[in-house]
């Protein structure tokens, strides 16, 4: 086991530990926005893990998948938040009126 392999393995383990922390935040909540942020951060951890994994096994196609995940993660977060503000995905960005603030921080939807 070479030195770089040990480094890759350690960084991968640390990323899995960070994923576990995100899972704890996802489990206990308590508000909608905590959970949306936790999902977004979890997707970022997955992207980083795939990049480390591509280095660890020497398979460059994992990097393409990591790029794809970064795009999907961004779009999914925007879609979730837009859906909760406007209850529709067909609202053009020009027509958006400011979302009304939720009572009790988004739990009442």
């Amino acid at each position: 086991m070479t030195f770089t392999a040990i480094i890759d393995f350690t960084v991968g383990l640390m990323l899995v530990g960070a994923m576990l922390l995100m899972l704890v935040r996802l489990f206990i909540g308590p508000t909608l926005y905590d959970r949306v942020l936790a999902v977004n951060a979890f997707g970022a951890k997955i992207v980083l893990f795939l990049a480390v994994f591509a280095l660890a096994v020497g398979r460059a196609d994992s990097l393409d998948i990591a790029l794809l995940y970064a795009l999907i993660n961004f779009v999914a977060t925007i879609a979730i938040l837009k859906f909760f503000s406007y209850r529709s995905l067909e609202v053009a960005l020009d027509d958006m009126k400011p979302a009304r603030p939720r009572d009790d921080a988004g739990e009442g939807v």
Partner: protein
Amino acid sequence: MTGADITQYFDYLFMVMLLFIGLTIIRLQNLFAVVMLTGVYSLIAAAWFVSLGAADVAITEAAVGAGISTVLLLAAMLLTAGEAKPTSAFRHWAALVVMAAAGVAVFYALGDLPVYGAADTPANTGPGMAYIERTPDEINIPNVVTAVLASYRGFDTMGEVFVVFAAGVGVALLLNLSGRGRREEDGE
């Protein structure tokens, strides 16, 4: 210790995380948290597929599981209540009995499966090898799975696209994704 030996420990960690997410989904009553957890479940499953070397399945899982189905579940959730009603203990136990029976059956069938990565499986000896030999000459792209799906089985894939399109139109109509024609108290 090679790279393949290391990745199996990541596989185990991902499986443990999937198990905990599944248990939490059963326990939580807040449906929004459940939808978010299913999205994360798909993300972890996709990373696990990459770790197992199935890149095409991982891309599909990330796009469908973490992307589209999360939004569809949110749309379905807006039509119902935000909290699940607590289910009776009898239904939990009945579900556990059914799942335990299915699990025992799967473990019983496990002995007939070939060893992971074995060279003498039907997939590695039959028509699959012909695809691998012919793809560089006939299709001239590096990925054999793409060559099989898009060219050798092109009509099959076209039929699947029709089915998925029809299903998507049905789901969009059921969930009223455009938001038109909603009642006034919902739309405000």
